[in-house]
Each structure stands twice: as structure tokens, then as C-alpha cells.
């Protein structure tokens, strides 16, 4: 008697409604915590470009927020390096992944400025977001440039689904440390960014535009190279504006 079609349909419908309510209810209920966790994770990634991962690990969430609020200020620029002053636009809320789908000219580009010891008047480094494609899925990160707008002070790289032990190694501190001190402009002032080479174990300390690669993860490395060079080029107008402003100040 349980086996009639009506029973099966009614049973399935009731079950679907109950489970549906349960899921949407829990998603609603947990949303504030989830958003907080995502925002905190983003701050940790931004800070990761300027301070070491161990320092961040040692901080409680409150300390991370406090450190971030004291030492990081931000602005949003467009492709021409002009500040975007529209209402409701804040750098922390700009979703790079969403803008990635739009043409480069229409995107918003957040810039994060790192001030040492809470001194707002002096910028220690400029942090730019990166976003691109790895082997399996998206990769992203943040790169910090020193005030000469040429030397890389640090980089954080993250990924959605790169192969563990191969492409996923871009998250390792040892790999990210390879970028520190590299230059993004050549002697003629052309933007060349930094290229991660194929193969691993070679010494690239004499070349300011190349870093040691990841064995077995060439496609991920190419993805990192692409996102670094493309995002630095999107910010090139802003970088050049900062450079000339500093040159004027220096005179």
C-alpha cells in the first residue's frame, strides 16, 4: 500500500520541502559568520604579501583585524590609474573574480597601501591583487611593490584546485620567497614582470626578472606568470603616476 505512485510522489515532495527548508535556513543562519570568515581570510592574504605567514598564523582574528585597520589603507582605481570615487566603492569589497569576467577597461582595481607602525602619512609598500587561471581552476594572490614601484617586496599566491604536491606548492612560503627582491621593470623602463621558469633547482639570483620554477607544475607556473604580467600591466598607469609623483617630490 506504501508503494502506490501517489504515496511515492507525496513522500518525495514532503521530504524535498523539509530538507529544502533545513538547508536554506542553515545557510541564512550561518551567513554572518561565513562572511566574516571570508573577509578575514582576504585580509590575511593581503597582509601575507607584506608580513610573513607565521606572524599571521600567530595572530587571533581580532589581532588580524586590528593590525589590518592600523596598517592598511586602500583605494580603488580604474585602468587609467584614476581614483574611482563613486559611492559605495571600497577596495575590500571589490570582487576581483567577478570583474575578471569583464573587459579590462571596465574593471575596478583596488590598491592596498601598507603603512608601517600605523603611520598613515608614509607608505611602505603598495599591494595589488592578482587573478588568473591555473591548471584546473582559478589562482589568485596579492603582490606587494616597494615604494620604488619596481621591487617586489612580497607575494601571496592561492589556488582553488591545483594538484597537491605540484601546482598547489605555489602556496608554500619557500616558493613565494623566490619573488622577493625581483624587479618588474627592465633598464629601459619597460614592464617585463617576473617569469617563473620551467624546471626547478636552478639559481636565478643574478636575473631580476626570473625565478626558479616548480617541477611538474609548468602550467600552474605559466598561469602565475600570466596573471602577474597582466595585472601589473592593468596597474601600469597607476604605477607610473606614482613614479612620476615621487620623481617630482624628489626634486
Amino acid at each position, binding site marked *: 500500500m506504501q508503494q502506490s505512485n501517489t504515496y511515492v510522489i507525496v513522500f518525495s515532495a514532503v521530504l524535498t520541502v523539509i530538507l529544502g527548508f533545513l538547508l536554506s535556513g542553515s545557510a541564512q543562519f550561518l551567513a554572518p559568520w*561565513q562572511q566574516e570568515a571570508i573577509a*578575514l581570510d582576504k585580509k590575511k592574504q593581503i597582509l601575507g604579501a607584506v608580513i610573513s605567514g607565521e606572524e599571521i598564523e600567530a595572530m587571533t582574528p581580532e589581532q588580524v583585524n586590528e593590525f589590518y585597520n592600523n596598517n592598511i589603507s586602500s583605494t580603488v582605481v580604474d585602468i587609467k590609474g584614476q581614483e574611482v570615487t563613486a559611492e559605495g566603492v571600497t577596495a575590500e569589497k571589490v570582487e576581483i573574480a567577478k570583474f575578471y569576467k569583464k573587459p579590462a577597461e571596465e574593471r575596478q582595481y583596488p590598491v592596498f597601501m601598507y603603512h608601517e607602525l600605523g603611520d598613515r602619512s608614509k607608505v611602505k609598500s603598495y599591494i595589488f591583487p592578482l587573478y588568473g587561471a591555473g591548471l584546473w581552476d582559478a589562482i589568485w594572490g596579492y603582490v606587494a611593490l616597494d615604494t620604488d614601484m619596481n621591487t617586489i617586496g612580497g607575494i601571496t599566491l592561492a589556488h582553488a584546485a591545483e594538484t*597537491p604536491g605540484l601546482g598547489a606548492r605555489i602556496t608554500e612560503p619557500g616558493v613565494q620567497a623566490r619573488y622577493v627582491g625581483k624587479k618588474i621593470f627592465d633598464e629601459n623602463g619597460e614592464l617585463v614582470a617576473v617569469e617563473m621558469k620551467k624546471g626547478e633547482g636552478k639559481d636565478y639570483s643574478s636575473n631580476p626578472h626570473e625565478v626558479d620554477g616548480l617541477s611538474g607544475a609548468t602550467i600552474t607556473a605559466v598561469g602565475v606568470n600570466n596573471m602577474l604580467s597582466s595585472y601589473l600591466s592593468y596597474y601600469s598607469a597607476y604605477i607610473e603616476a606614482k613614479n612620476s609623483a615621487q620623481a617630482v617630490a624628489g626634486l
Partner: protein
Amino acid sequence: MSAETIEKVIDVKPAEGLISKRRRKLVTDPLIDENPITIQVLGICSALAVTTQMKPTLVMSISVIFVIVLSNVVISLMRNTIPSRVRIIVQLAVVATLVTLVSELLKAFSYDMYKELSVFIGLIITNCIVMGRLEAFAMGNKPYDSMLDGLGSALGYSWIILTVAFFRELFGSGAVFGIPVYSYVSGIFGDDFKLANNGLMVTPVGAFIILGLIVWVQRSKTGYVEH
């Protein structure tokens, strides 16, 4: 309800204790003699995928315990109302709901783990151990027994993947629970004594090797032979 899906129908005497011998066996059998991974060879996919480090493996174990126990209880409570023609879909819907709940909870309260385990939490849905216990046990037994049965299977799964993770993290990354054991050892014996990480252990191949060794040791002890 179709009779062929029931593994064993047990007569429960009214005065049976909460931890009677039979009920203890429900929990202890899957630990060694009926282990889901090493004997039944179920849930291998996640055993290979999440076991590079101890910490995510522990979170995975807790999630699997939560999902198996609760889905066993829920399905057992509904067992007399579930139409047998759609029972697999019903089981799947319950499991999927619980897994999504785990995933949402991790996202809210342990975001780092959520990122690290990412897709593998979702893949608990397809873990054969979960569906296997629902179909073989919860559909034909009372809630409390089903809970114990689920707990046993989940613990059997957990201790195996934790053992695999221990060796993979130790040999592959030179650490246990993120504590860099290798660098401590080098610290004691001086810089000349350096332990190298074995990259093979980080790849799924390493998990296969460790798992194979565990199965070998276990079967040589218990004398279990596949027929």
C-alpha cells in the same frame, strides 16, 4: 520494504542493556574484522585524497563520523515510511543535506579547513561507506543500533585514514600535525644530519603504498583471505 536489502534482522530482547555484548560488537567489528577500508575496500577515494596531512584528515574524520551516524539514525527512523522504489534517492537526499550542513558549518567556523578540504567534504556524499551502511543496516534496524553501527564504521574509516595521514605527513612533509619533527631531529643531531622529505608520499601514490602496507599487516595478523 524489500527483504533482500537487509543484512541481518536481529531479535532485540526488551531488556537488552544499552551497551550489551551484541551492541558493543556493532561498534567494534568495523574497527578491524569488518573494516570498511581494509576489508570491504570502500571509501578509498577520500582515503587517498585528504590524507597528506593529519589536521585536515582529522577534520574529515569528524565530518564523516557526523554524517554517517546522523544519516543512519535519520534513515532508520524513517525506514518504515520510505517507499522502496525511491529509497536510494531518499537516502541520497538525506546524506546530501547533512554533508551540505557540515560544509556550511566549516565555512562559517573553520574557514581555513573549508578551503583546504574544499571539494572532498562535498564528496562525502559519494563515500560508499555512508550509502553502504544505510542500505545494509539502517533500512532494517532500530535507530539506536543504527547509530552504533554508523559509529563503528565511521571510526573504522577514521583510524585508517589517520594512520595513513600520519605516515604521509611524517615522510612527505617531515611533520606531525604541522609540528616540524624533522627539523627538531636535525636540531638535535646537528646540521650534518639532515632528513629529506619524500615527495612520493605527498602524491596519491604514497597513500596507496601506505594503505597497501596496512592491509598487508592486518591480513597477516587476522589471517583474512578474500574468497
